[in-house]
């Protein structure tokens, strides 16, 4: 066996295409668009040159309701793409059961492929075909036409229309993203999987992209979106925080924020990097993280007063100290839930 650079040990293809569609449809009656039960995935490679034994996903369970905008939030390497590839039938899990629209990803994957749209993190359309041709190809392979579902993509495609004769490879990043979304939508999927759709996209386009998702949600399309940006979490109906292959918490963004158990202060001074070290060295401080312009800190059992902290910091040589009590953000919750903060 030739060594392949990627760890794709379970690429899915098959020659068998006689799935019994009618029998399967009767099973999809619940309100769940997707259910995922104790899914685990481990990458193992044992060649003389490369030893890999990574647990990408461990015991992942969650459910997504019809018409929900569900976010999977996690840093790079958390296992988001692996999870998406399992959900979209591209990869087999080691264990666990996944059902999308009532179809099992292992036995009924052919039915699922008719029902879902998938937009991978990397631009994966034909670069040598034009915008229009790409859209046409993806419409045709789903046995539909651009006209039939034009209403779904109209708002997005309008922006692409001036470039419809341009080759996809020559589009700007934001335009490519819009085209990829159009291609994932053209067959009117019931569930849409978007793997890091906003990574590498400028802030204005990111905002636009989320506007588009809201409009799609109004069309009763269930959307699963993964992102490493914590600020996008609040735009989802519910989110799952994913870290190192485990789900830390699943809830609405509001609940997650309101359940934050500690009092949170933001601290800044004129020497920010020294400040962080100093803060972390104070025994009473439970956690201290850098958040751009300020550091967010929490205390162990007994809390200090702001004045006491200010006095302490002044003693350590800091000036222009600003201390504020703040509301927790998703990122604070993420930090709090991650195992390091507990260890």
């Amino acid at each position, binding site marked *: 066996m030739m060594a*392949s650079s990627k760890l794709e*040990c379970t*690429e899915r*293809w098959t*020659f068998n295409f006689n799935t019994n569609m009618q029998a399967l449809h009767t099973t999809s009656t619940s309100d769940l668009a997707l259910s995922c039960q104790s899914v685990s995935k481990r990458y193992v490679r044992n060649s003389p040159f490369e030893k890999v034994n990574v647990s990408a996903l461990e015991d992942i369970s969650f459910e997504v309701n019809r018409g929900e905008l569900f976010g999977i939030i996690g840093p790079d390497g958390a296992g988001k793409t692996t999870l998406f590839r399992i959900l*979209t039938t591209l990869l087999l899990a080691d264990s666990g059961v996944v059902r999308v629209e009532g179809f099992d990803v292992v036995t009924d994957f052919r039915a699922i492929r008719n029902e879902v749209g998938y937009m991978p993190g990397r*631009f*994966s359309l034909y670069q040598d075909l034009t915008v229009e041709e790409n859209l046409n190809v993806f419409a045709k392979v*789903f046995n539909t036409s651009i006209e039939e579902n034009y209403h779904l993509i109209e708002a997005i495609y309008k922006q692409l229309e001036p470039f419809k004769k341009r080759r996809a490879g020559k589009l700007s990043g934001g335009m490519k993203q819009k085209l990829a979304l159009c291609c994932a939508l053209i067959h009117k999927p019931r569930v849409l999987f978007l793997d890091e759709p906003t990574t590498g996209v400028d802030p204005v386009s990111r905002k636009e992209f989320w506007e588009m998702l809201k409009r799609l949600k109004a069309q009763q399309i269930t959307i699963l979106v993964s992102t490493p940006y914590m600020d996008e979490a609040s735009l989802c109906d519910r989110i799952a925080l994913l870290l190192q292959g485990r789900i830390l918490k699943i809830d609405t963004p509001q609940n997650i924020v309101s359940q934050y158990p500690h009092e949170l202060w933001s601290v800044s001074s004129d020497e920010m990097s020294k400040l962080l070290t100093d803060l972390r060295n104070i025994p009473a401080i439970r956690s201290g993280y850098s958040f751009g312009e300020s550091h967010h800190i929490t205390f162990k059992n007994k809390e200090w007063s702001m004045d006491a902290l200010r006095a302490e910091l002044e003693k350590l040589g800091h000036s222009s100290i600003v201390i504020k009590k703040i509301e927790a953000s998703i990122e604070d919750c993420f930090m709090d839930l991650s195992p390091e903060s507990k260890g």
Partner: protein
Amino acid sequence: MLHYLIEKEFKQFFRNTFLPRLVISLPFMAILIFPLVANYDVKNFNLSIVDSDKSPYSGELVRKIESSGYYRITDVSATFDDALKSIERHESDILLEIPVHFEKELVREGKATVLISSNTVNGMKGGLGSAYLSSIVADFNSEIRSELMQVSRGRQVPAIEIVPMYKFNPQLSYKVYMIPAIMIMILALVCGYLPALNIVGEKESGTFEQMNVTPVSKIHFILAKLIPYWVVGFVVLTISFFAAWLFYGFLPVGSFVTLYVFSSLFVLAISGFGLVVSNYASTIQQAIFMIFFFVLTFIFMSGLYTPVASMPEWAQAISAFSPLKYIIMVFRLVYLKGSTVHDLLVPFAALSGFAIFFNSWAIMSYHKKN
């Protein structure tokens, strides 16, 4: 659904600025240029003459050699050592020494010796050069013999003259031998390697996976990849036939139908090989190296350059596993001898075997990764 995918492939093929032109010009270029370059009809040997006799007979021998057209006399030396130096200086490739008393001995004793020495750094050239030269000397010998005998005895001498007759390729032209093989090389390139690289290219760009989440089945996906290249392959093959006729007036003695039937079988086998490669390679770089490895083996074992019969026995055994060997054999036989399908049952069985073998391997290696 299949025809949309095929339409897409053709669109991409013709949109490529490079590929369509290459595919059309390749057969013309290959058939026009390769046979001229890869040629064993060696000419223009540089000959150094050491004529120590300087008699009418020795002069006649030199003139005879010169008029053969194969030799250019580039050096005339006084001694063997000088002539050897001219070989060392690359001024001549071969030397002929005519000893003193050549004529005297020839007339008086009825025999004389000459020395032929050739530079065999290039073995092919040296061997052929000295072989041609000996045959010219032998020819000269028989002329002299009959002349001298007539003078002395006044009647014809009985002598055995060997006249070889070359069947199927009367001029022993290397072109005729090469062209059918070149046609096959091009066909293998277009129908075997290009689709494999195309599939791996889709893997690399991620479109393979994007297609994978659509209802397109693997078999449709692959057929959509192969069919356009099959079509292009047969167009190219037809161009090759045409080019061979145009440049060399070279037409098969047998029928085109036989050629197309065997080509189809070969195309099936080589596409299957391409699919196997595309299964194991995940980048174009890997695919190119895998193809390169196997293609080199296939070519050298196929008898394209050197006849299979001249290989050592173990190599002949290995050559049985090169599909190129069988199809090249078929093309040569049909072109030169006019063999029919009936005469070609062995290659037919072998190529069918390869087609089944590679395609089942391709299917099995997909399932393995399932």
